[in-house]
């Protein structure tokens, strides 16, 4: 199986500041053709060439899934991150040529649902923007509960409340507004599905409360892409390709493997999908597992690592790659 998905060459047509933390980017096909339709909740992996560094970051598609003329994404600036969002914010300009992946959906709507209950935190709003457009076209029933830090940072609040005044509920942290989750979940009709996208704490809170109230596991959907975090540099031996590589401070292990010219599978690059799972042949040191994929006993077992987000500290690490 080859790595990742098909690629699409695109041109950036618009870069629009949404607020002080978020910018929106619009892509059209470089060859002037149509982009593939997609399903609400899908993401694309954006390739960024920043000098000698190549980064591939996943971003949820927020445009209308039926609109084949352009894709849009929104990127929240992370000043402490490894630089992907800073590159998008500071270096990408209209007219730039970029490469993105075909859409991949790891957070799709369950189309059996009688009602879709969406809970978003911050930039976690983006997949819901596409899902709401899809559901609106299909006369699907939805209700969005969206928590933001402040009105100034409430990305797309105005658009959402104007178009869907009866279905969108916004909560501002700075005004002490909190989603009354227990009450909200208690009042849903049979056949409702819950979708949550936002910070780790919010996802855990919603999943925990839903489980406590007896919601079926299959009716609770969540997506949390982790951004790879910087860390101490480390060295890795790739046994199959017989290479020794260095993983830099601001580089993920997966990116270092790719930079060495080794074809490694991936999809989400955010610790969620399991596609990049790699066998550990030997190690002397400590794993820093950061993914959602491996079970706790697998993380303790020292035989698997998810190179998209996890790191290593120690003397030697040998991978089956």
């Amino acid at each position: 199986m080859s790595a990742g998905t098909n690629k699409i060459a695109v041109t950036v047509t618009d870069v629009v500041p949404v607020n002080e933390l978020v910018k929106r980017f619009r892509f059209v096909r470089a060859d002037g053709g149509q982009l593939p339709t997609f399903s609400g909740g899908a993401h694309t992996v954006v390739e960024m060439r920043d000098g000698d560094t190549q980064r591939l970051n996943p971003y949820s598609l927020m445009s209308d899934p039926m609109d084949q003329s352009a894709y849009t994404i929104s990127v929240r600036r992370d000043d402490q991150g490894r630089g992907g969002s800073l590159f998008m914010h500071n270096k990408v300009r209209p007219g730039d040529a970029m490469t993105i992946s075909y859409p991949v959906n790891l957070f799709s709507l369950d189309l059996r649902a009688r009602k879709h209950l969406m809970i978003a935190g911050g930039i976690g709003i983006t997949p819901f923007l596409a899902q709401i457009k899809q559901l609106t076209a299909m006369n699907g029933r939805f209700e969005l509960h969206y928590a933001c830090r402040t009105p100034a940072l409430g990305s797309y609040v105005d658009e959402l409340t104007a178009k869907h005044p009866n279905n969108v509920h916004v909560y501002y942290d700075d005004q002490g507004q909190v989603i009354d989750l227990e009450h909200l979940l208690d009042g849903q009709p049979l056949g409702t599905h819950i979708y949550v996208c936002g910070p780790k704490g919010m996802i855990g809170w919603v999943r925990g409360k839903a489980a406590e109230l007896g919601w079926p596991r299959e009716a609770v959907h969540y997506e949390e892409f982790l951004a790879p975090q910087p860390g101490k540099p480390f060295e890795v031996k790739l046994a199959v390709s017989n290479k020794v590589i260095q993983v830099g401070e601001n580089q993920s292990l997966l990116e270092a493997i790719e930079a060495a010219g080794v074809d490694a599978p991936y999809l989400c690059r955010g610790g969620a999908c399991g596609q990049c799972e790699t066998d550990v042949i030997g190690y002397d040191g400590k794993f820093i597992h950061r993914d959602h994929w491996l079970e706790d006993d697998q993380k303790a077992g020292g035989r698997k690592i998810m190179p998209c987000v996890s790191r290593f500290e120690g003397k030697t690490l040998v991978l089956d790659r």
Partner: protein
Amino acid sequence: MTIQFNEETFRDDYTFRNSDWAIKRFPFPFHEDSYMYSVNMEQHQGGPAGSVFEKRFDVDEHYVAEMKDRALVLAEDPLRCQSLPHMTLAGWDLLELIMVSKSEDYPDLFELHRDGNNWHWINRPMGIEQKFVFMDESTLPYGPMEYITRQAQGDFCVLDQRDDNLWMDAGMVTTQADWSLDFDIGMNFFEWHAPVPKAHEMGIFVRALKFLLNIQQGMPARRLNWTMTVNPLLDTSPENYHKWGVQKTTLTPENLGAKQHLRVELQTFFRLPRSNALVFPIRCYLISLEDLVTVPKWGRRLHRVIRDLPVELATYKGFIDNRPMILDYLAQHDDGLPTSDGIWPDLATEPPLSPS
């Protein structure tokens, strides 16, 4: 190339036949002289010119006759086509995929003109012309999946993807190797594969499911599967077993070459964009053993595969009782010479059958 469509039947008088062209492009499923299950998947991104792998949806000389046979099956048993309510969007996805693929791959046979959601579809071999509104079911004579799969060879399973599993939630199944959509509808991947011997213990299905869940838009995949069928019957369904099962007892050493067919399924897998469902087209190709052995390599190899097949598999595939007679026939076409690797006929390089 212009295709001459056969006038032929897959029932009663069985006038089905393969032309020399169809024999040479037959998807022979064995790449070596033995067979065991494997996940044998590859990308479905074209193939050698003229082969059944070249186009996204292969159209061949049997197209028109197969569609007539499908209409007969559906008239007798409408439950061969079912779509659970949440699968309508996937049906539109499938209609678009087939119409776009066929009109691009066979522009002399099919045309699709799109003006926004106003679509105009022309199917020349079947004499169909239809103007309709995409995503508006009221503008088509059937639901979108049924409409387009009445015009596409092979069975179609439309699988919903959720809870890290695939669910048989829609399909058009009239040319199946003894399984029933009506029985399997709503089942998940492990449930509908429960009757398959050995493969569960081998971990085949866990690996296959992982692969299928990760098939992405623009990256379709394919594999071959096979069984044996007496008489060129497309509809070998459990519903009609009382009609065709008994035909397995009509084989004689004299008629076996003409009556016994190798049945090969070209299985493909496409991610559907709007619904995130997976469509699993299962295209059936039939060839009589007397036609198959005109390719010396295939005659030698099929004899070895059938001879060495584990009893469980020959039982599951439904030819255990006839295996001795089939082997007697095939042994006449196996001179023991080595065979070349791969599935292709290699007519230019493989030696003819040595005189015994």
